Structure formats: structure tokens, C-alpha cells
């Protein structure tokens, strides 16, 4: 340490004797005597109204004191105006920053402290102001912002920068850390320690004992305007300080306050953590939002793909069905043209044989009859495979012929009602309807034990095709479940519903036990103009 610095630091910077401040009749500062040495960091604590802020305002010259004396570096110091204090080098950061709202940050920082007499020296002001903002992690662009547009924390930084912009031997901080964020508080505490090492004295009012214990050498306790205790920070505990602040040593009075202070600081810390978490969350949320969007996008792409697949599948199934019909037609023709003709030629040859030879005629006749039965069965099979009438005469004729045949074979009374204006429909539709009716009638024969059956085929008002097959049989036992039916290899209804789905139609089954079943199918018209 250089000798001059040492000497300067050894002698007191400020000596106050019997400093008293009255507001009217009220005694606000009561006979305060103290010393401040250069480079010292002193904390001031006390209850609200104990006179902490008034002490700082008085030392800053903002409130002329009522009586007592001040000595600054050994010389008597008069403090009638703030300016006199500033000239001596006493800077104050007030509890709430007071700034010129319409002026920019740069002007505010150097307000009343401008280097240069008539014209401000920008060359010195701008770099210094930049430096100060950088210490608090604020961008240099803020210099030209109007103070009115700043946040509370930024305003506090401006107020602190005011106090630090020109070197001052004594800086008074009136709770200047409270509005700062946790990080900036840490930075500012470090800065205070650095400046204290170079000889700046700090007098700090704070309610945060942690801050005070971290950086101060001494703590002053004010109680109702009196300086009741001066303690070396190293030799005192927060508990003792709180006892002094409260002015009591009773356990039951002090403990809640310590607890409250502790929880206050914890809460402050937590609030800061929460704020950071909130920021992180907000960022996360934004990221999540975009992720969600991507997912939705992909999902909708997949849905579109599925739809296309479904359509393709339906088309394939339709084609399959058509091909099956083609196959049946082909098979029927083969059977009819080949097998039946062959069988018939065998029969004729048997007949010829029967005429020529008599011994085995009985056996032959039997074989011949058997063959004829086979031919009849085969014919029936061909007709079932591919109803011949449907190709030639259309759906109504085919239905009529089939129904008639069915009624005769099963001895059931069947009423047929077919719309006379039905006209021809696409082959696939006609075949499907025929198969649906065929299957339905088969079901009735197998399960219903019906006396009367009624088959209706007509166009509805909105030009759809309506097929209605009703009987007066036993009805269906339980609610239908296609999956169960399919598992039990009852493909009748499953086949019907598949065909209807392929035509885009709807299937409705109404059933009452012992009172019959109604099977109603509605198929969108393939040619609605008809």
C-alpha cells in the first residue's frame, strides 16, 4: 500500500458529533456521533422509522440537519444543499430512484455531475456510462432510452450508476439492492468490495442481513433515532443484531422475527429461482409448442395416408369381388358347357345302351337317373353361382325368379314388391343386391321358421335404393355382433355387411323375439338422376 493511501485510510473520512435532526417537533435523529474511515463498509440496520433513511439523506445534504457538527477529512463540513455534499464527494442512491423522466439514461446518469462546464464532455461520459451498464449486464443501447421507458430494476441500475459515475469517497446506499435481481445483487456486492479496497467508503442501509454480513466490517443499529449499538460484523451474530433492532432479548419476541427474516430471504431466493424456472419453462413451452405442431402435422399426414390406403383397400376388395363373380361366371359356364354336356352325352349313351341291352337295364336306368340328378344339381349350382337371369333380364326379373323358386322349395308365403321404375343398375350393384337378398332368404330358411316373408325393393325420396326383407319368424336371439358371427364361421350376415360397406350403404336390423326380423339396407344410388 502506498504511503499516501495508507495515511488517507488511517485518518477518519467523516466524523459526526451530536448530529441531530428534527422534523418540526419530532426528533428523528437523536444526538448521533460516529466516525467513518476510508475504505470502510458499514451497514445500518433498524426498524422501519428508526431513522435509517433520514440519516443517509442528512449525510447526503438532502436534509439540512438541525444541530451537531460534521468534519470531512478534518475540515468542518456544512451540508445545507445536496450540492455541497456532492462537491465533497458524497453520493446517495435513494430508496426509490428519482430520475428525470423525459431525458435519456446517459443524461440521467451524469445529471448534475457532467464533466465540462458549459458543454458536457461526451468523450468522457459515454465510455464511462457504457462501463457502468456493462457491470450490471445491461446493453449500451440503453443509454439513449428515455428513463420513463425503463423497468424498475433498470431504473435502480441508473440510480446506482449515478452514484458511481464519478469517483466519490463516500457512497450512501439506501436499500439499493432490493429491486435488483439475484445475480445483479451478487455483482453489486462484489463491486462494492472492489471499490472499498481502493478507498471508497460505503454506508449501506439494508434489511437483508445476509448482504450486510457478507460485506460490512461494522454494523450500526438505530433505534428510534438513536445509535444504540455499533458492532464489528466479525464479532456478532445475526441473532444479536435482530435483538438490537427489536430492542428486546426475550426469546418469544426475537425468534419470530429471526424466523420471519430468514424465511423472507429464503422466499426472496426462491422467488428468484422461480422467476428463472419460469423463464426456462416459457422457453421449454415454446419448444414444446413447435414439437406438438410437428406431431400434429405428422399425424394428419398419417391420417391422410391411412385414408388413401383405405380407399385403395376398398377398391381392391371391390375388384376382388368382381373377379370372384367373374370366376363364378366362368366356372358356371365351364360346368354348363363342359361337365353338364359331358354328363348329358353319357346319359344319351346310357339311353342307347338301355334300348339295345336289356339285362342291365335296371341298373343302367338307375345310373341314368342318378346322372340326371347330378345334372339338375349342377344346373342349380350354375344358377346359384351366377344367376343367369340377372345378366339377361336385370335385377327385378332375377329377384322374382329366385324368390319364386325359394318360396316353392320352402313352402313359405313370399310377397314381392319391386319398384317398377327401377331400371338397370350397374352390374356390381345389381349383383350385390341379389346376393344380399339371396343370403337373407337363406338365413330366413335356416333360422327363422317364418310363415310370411316380404321383400321390398324401391327408390327412396332421396333416390337411394332401399331393400327391405321382413319375416314373421322367431327373430334374432341376442344383439348382433359381427365379430362373434365371423369367429363362429357364420359368414352370411358378415358377407352382407361387407358388400353394403363396399357400396357405401347402411345396414339396419330390427328384431323382436317371436315376432320376426326386418333387414333393411339402404344403398346410395349410383345414378341419382334416375
Amino acid at each position, binding site marked *: 500500500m502506498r504511503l499516501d493511501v495508507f495515511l488517507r485510510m488511517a485518518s477518519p473520512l467523516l466524523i459526526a458529533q451530536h448530529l441531530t435532526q428534527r422534523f418540526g417537533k419530532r426528533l428523528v435523529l437523536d444526538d448521533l456521533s460516529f466516525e467513518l474511515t476510508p475504505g470502510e463498509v458499514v451497514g445500518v440496520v433498524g426498524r422501519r422509522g428508526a431513522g435509517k433513511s433520514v440519516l443517509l439523506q442528512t449525510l447526503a445534504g438532502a436534509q439540512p440537519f438541525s444541530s451537531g457538527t460534521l468534519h470531512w477529512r478534518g475540515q468542518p463540513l456544512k451540508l445545507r444543499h445536496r450540492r455541497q455534499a456532492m462537491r465533497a464527494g458524497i453520493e446517495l442512491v435513494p430508496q426509490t430512484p428519482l430520475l428525470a423522466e423525459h431525458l435519456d439514461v446517459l443524461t440521467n446518469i451524469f445529471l448534475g455531475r457532467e464533466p465540462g462546464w458549459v458543454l*458536457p464532455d461526451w468523450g468522457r461520459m459515454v465510455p464511462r456510462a457504457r462501463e457502468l451498464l456493462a457491470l450490471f449486464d445491461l446493453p449500451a443501447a440503453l443509454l439513449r432510452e428515455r428513463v420513463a421507458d425503463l423497468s424498475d430494476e433498470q431504473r435502480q441500475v441508473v440510480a446506482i450508476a449515478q452514484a458511481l459515475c464519478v469517483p466519490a469517497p463516500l457512497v450512501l446506499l439506501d436499500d439499493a439492492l432490493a429491486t435488483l435481481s439475484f445475480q445483479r445483487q451478487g455483482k453489486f456486492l462484489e463491486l462494492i468490495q472492489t471499490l472499498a479496497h481502493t478507498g471508497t467508503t460505503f454506508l449501506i442501509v439494508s434489511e437483508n442481513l445476509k448482504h450486510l454480513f457478507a460485506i460490512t466490517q461494522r454494523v450500526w443499529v438505530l433505534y428510534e433515532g438513536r445509535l444504540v449499538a455499533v458492532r464489528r460484523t466479525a464479532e456478532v451474530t445475526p441473532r444479536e443484531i435482530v435483538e438490537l433492532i427489536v430492542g428486546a432479548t426475550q426469546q418469544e419476541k426475537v425468534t419470530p422475527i429471526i424466523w420471519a427474516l430468514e424465511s423472507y430471504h429464503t422466499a426472496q431466493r426462491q422467488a428468484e429461482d422461480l422467476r428463472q424456472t419460469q423463464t426456462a419453462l416459457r422457453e421449454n413451452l415454446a419448444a414444446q409448442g413447435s414439437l406438438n405442431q410437428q406431431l400434429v402435422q405428422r399425424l394428419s399426414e398419417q391420417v391422410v395416408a391411412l385414408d388413401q390406403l383405405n380407399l385403395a383397400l376398398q377398391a381392391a376388395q371391390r375388384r376382388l369381388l368382381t373377379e370372384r363373380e367373374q370366376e363364378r361366371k366362368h366356372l358356371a359356364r365351364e360346368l354348363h358347357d363342359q361337365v353338364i354336356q359331358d354328363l348329358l352325352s353319357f346319359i344319351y349313351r346310357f339311353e342307347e345302351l338301355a334300348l339295345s341291352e336289356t339285362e342291365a337295364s335296371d341298373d343302367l336306368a338307375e345310373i341314368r337317373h342318378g346322372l340326371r340328378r347330378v345334372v339338375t344339381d349342377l344346373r342349380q349350382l350354375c344358377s346359384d353361382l351366377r344367376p343367369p337371369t340377372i345378366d339377361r333380364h336385370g335385377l327385378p326379373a332375377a329377384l322374382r325368379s329366385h324368390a319364386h323358386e325359394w318360396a316353392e322349395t320352402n313352402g313359405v308365403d313370399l310377397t314381392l314388391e319391386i319398384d317398377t321404375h327401377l331400371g338397370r343398375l350397374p352390374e356390381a350393384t345389381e349383383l350385390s343386391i341379389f346376393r344380399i337378398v339371396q343370403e337373407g332368404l337363406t338365413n330366413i330358411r335356416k333360422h327363422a321358421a317364418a310363415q310370411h316373408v316380404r321383400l321390398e325393393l324401391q327408390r327412396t325420396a332421396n333416390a337411394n335404393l332401399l331393400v327391405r326383407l321382413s319375416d314373421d319368424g322367431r327373430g334374432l336371439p341376442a344383439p348382433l355382433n359381427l365379430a362373434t358371427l365371423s369367429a363362429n364361421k357364420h359368414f352370411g350376415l358378415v358377407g352382407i355387411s361387407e358388400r353394403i360397406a363396399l357400396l357405401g350403404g347402411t345396414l339396419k336390423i330390427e328384431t323382436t323375439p317371436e315376432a320376426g326380423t326386418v333387414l333393411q339396407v339402404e344403398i346410395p344410388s349410383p345414378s341419382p338422376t334416375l
Partner: protein
Amino acid sequence: MLNNLQKILRENIREYGMYIALFLIMAYFALRTQNNAFISPRNISNLLNQTGYIAVLAVGMTLIIVIRQIDLSVGFLAGFLGAVAAIALKFWGLPVWLVIPMVLALGAVAGVITALPVAQLGIPSFVASLAGWLIYRGALVLVLAGSGTVIIEDPAFNAIGSGFIPDLQDLIPGLPDIGFLPGVHKLTLLLGLLAIGLYIWGEIDSRRKKQAYNFEILPMDMFVLKLAFTSALIMGVVWVLAQFNGLSWTVVIVLLVVAFYNFVTTQTVLGRHIYAVGGNPEAAELSGISVKRLTYIVFGSMGMLAALSGILYSARLKSAAPQAGTLFELDAIAAAYVGGVSAAGGVGKVIGSIIGALVMSSLTSGMNLQGIDISYQYIVKGAVLVVAVVFDVATRNRGK
């Protein structure tokens, strides 16, 4: 480029609003008066000379309103000091070079006296200056009681209010007449060119400085546009004036006053402190600025400008009358408000108040030329004032 222009206009509408208003008003009257009489060199010259004594008051009033005060006494103070000047010249036989500084000093003292109760006792300036209004009115009548209207015969003094600057040939007797632009006032043109040169140099200099500190600056195209536009405007006015008798002494004085006050308010520490006091007196006080001292300075300067206004007015009329100065203070206050000075304090420019004064006198001149009845003239001017203040409030939170 057009986008840039739109953006800058939108952001600075508060600043450019009154220029646009002035331009529109002048354009309107130029088109609507017979033979475009409004923009004839004679009328423009007359208009500027007429605005002079209100303009200097408006400059002082701007600072008064900026520090959240008002001064009602300046009208009759101007009238009273004009009368004092006339009496000093005529009856006391004092030379003009003594009378003018003396009257200006008296004005400054009168301003400080008005400020005394305001600064020391915190009495509202409205009341303090209202007392001044009554006192100076009485004083004006009192000093002229014996003589009635005093006719001023000093040619040098009268030239201040109604004379024009000499041309080159009068200044340099040996200068040959080269026949260049006959009938046009060459010195006025030269001074105009000089003003443009100074203006451009100043703008470029300040731009360079801002650039050096990495401050925000106008884009280059906008900057050039601004320079070109302002230069054209200056040249246009100078050209019109040069076609008549050239610059009048009144205009020269007003320009000097405006230049000085503009410099003080925008460049100096003092100017910053004035705006700081207007913006937040407590904050200024806490920064070691003496609000009291600034109150004295601002009121003192107002008093001095009132004296100047009185000199300009009496020199223009070549006489001092008991009615001189009536309602000057209200015209000055109106000019300041129209020119964008905020009633809330802390905001307002000297140049703006000059524009405001020009707006008001353009309205008077234009409506006079159109032969509009005086009663309607007051109503129109009142409406303009209301619009200006509403505009101020509406744009307060947007502009800088």
C-alpha cells in the same frame, strides 16, 4: 426509401407535426388569397417582422413552461420597458447604444424579481406573475401619464423594428454593379447560403459524433433528404425575402436569439438541467441541481426577452403607447403550446415555439388577407390551440 420516410414520420410525428401544420396552413392561404398575395415577398417579409416581438417572448416562455412555471407579466413588462426606452431616448437624451443594454438589464432584473417569491417562498408563478402583470400595467400607464404616446425619432432605434440590412453596395461603396440579379438583395442571399453551409456542417458534425459513440442515427438516404429539404426551405424563404428588401433587422435579431437559445437548451449542461428540473424537480434537486438558481435564470432570461420584445415593438411602431403589450403574454403562451411545449413540463423545444408563433401569425395574416372578421379569427385560433394541445396529449407517450 418511402418506407423509411413513413417510419421516421410516424415515430417523430410529435416533432414534425407542427412543421407539417405550418406548411399546410401556408399552402392553404397561398392558394386561397387573391393573386397568391399571401406568399408575396412583401407579405412574407411583413409576416416575419410582425411575428418577431411575439417570437422572442415565445422563446422565453418555452423555458418557463418547461420548468413547470408560467409568466403572465411579460406582456405589460414589454410594453413598460418599451416606454422606458422611448422616454430614455426622447426625454433623457440617452444614446441608443446605452438605452438598449440598459433596458435589457432592467428586463432581466424584473424577471428575477418575479422569480423571487416563486423560488424563495414557493408561491405559484401564476399568482406572482399576475401581480407583475398588474404592476407593470400600472407602471406603463404611469410613465406615459405626462406625455401620452411618445413618438420615437431615433432612426437607429427604429431600424431595429422596421429597417432592413444594407446590401453589399451600401456596405462596400467601391463595389461595381455587375448587373447580376437586379433588384434582388444579394447580402441576404449570401447570408442564406452561409446559413445553409453552417447548418449542413453542423448536422454532419453531430452525425459523426453520434456515429463515434455508436448512437442511433438516421439512415443515410433520410439524412440526405433531411439536409436537402431543410436547405431548400431556407433558400426558398431567403429568396422570397431577397426579392423584397432583404432581411429585416427584426428577423436577424430573432434568428440570433433562437440560435442562441436553441444551442443553450440542446447542447449545454445548463439546458439539460432546465429539462431535468421540468421533468422531475425532486430528482434534479437530488442530483445537486439548484432548482432555485434555475428558476432565477429562466425568469431572468424571460424578463430580458420581454425587454427585447418591448424594444422590437416600440421600434416597429416608432412610438410607445399605453396599450403596448396588451395580451402579448397570452399570444406567447399559445405559440409555445402550439409549438409542442408540454403543459406537464419537461418537454418542448425553442424551435417548436417559433414555429408555433409563425402558425399563429400566419393564421392572422392569411385571414386578414381573406377579409375574415376578427371575431372568427379568434375562434379559429382558439380551435387551433385546442387541436395542438390535444395532439400533444395524444402523442405524449409515443414520441421521444
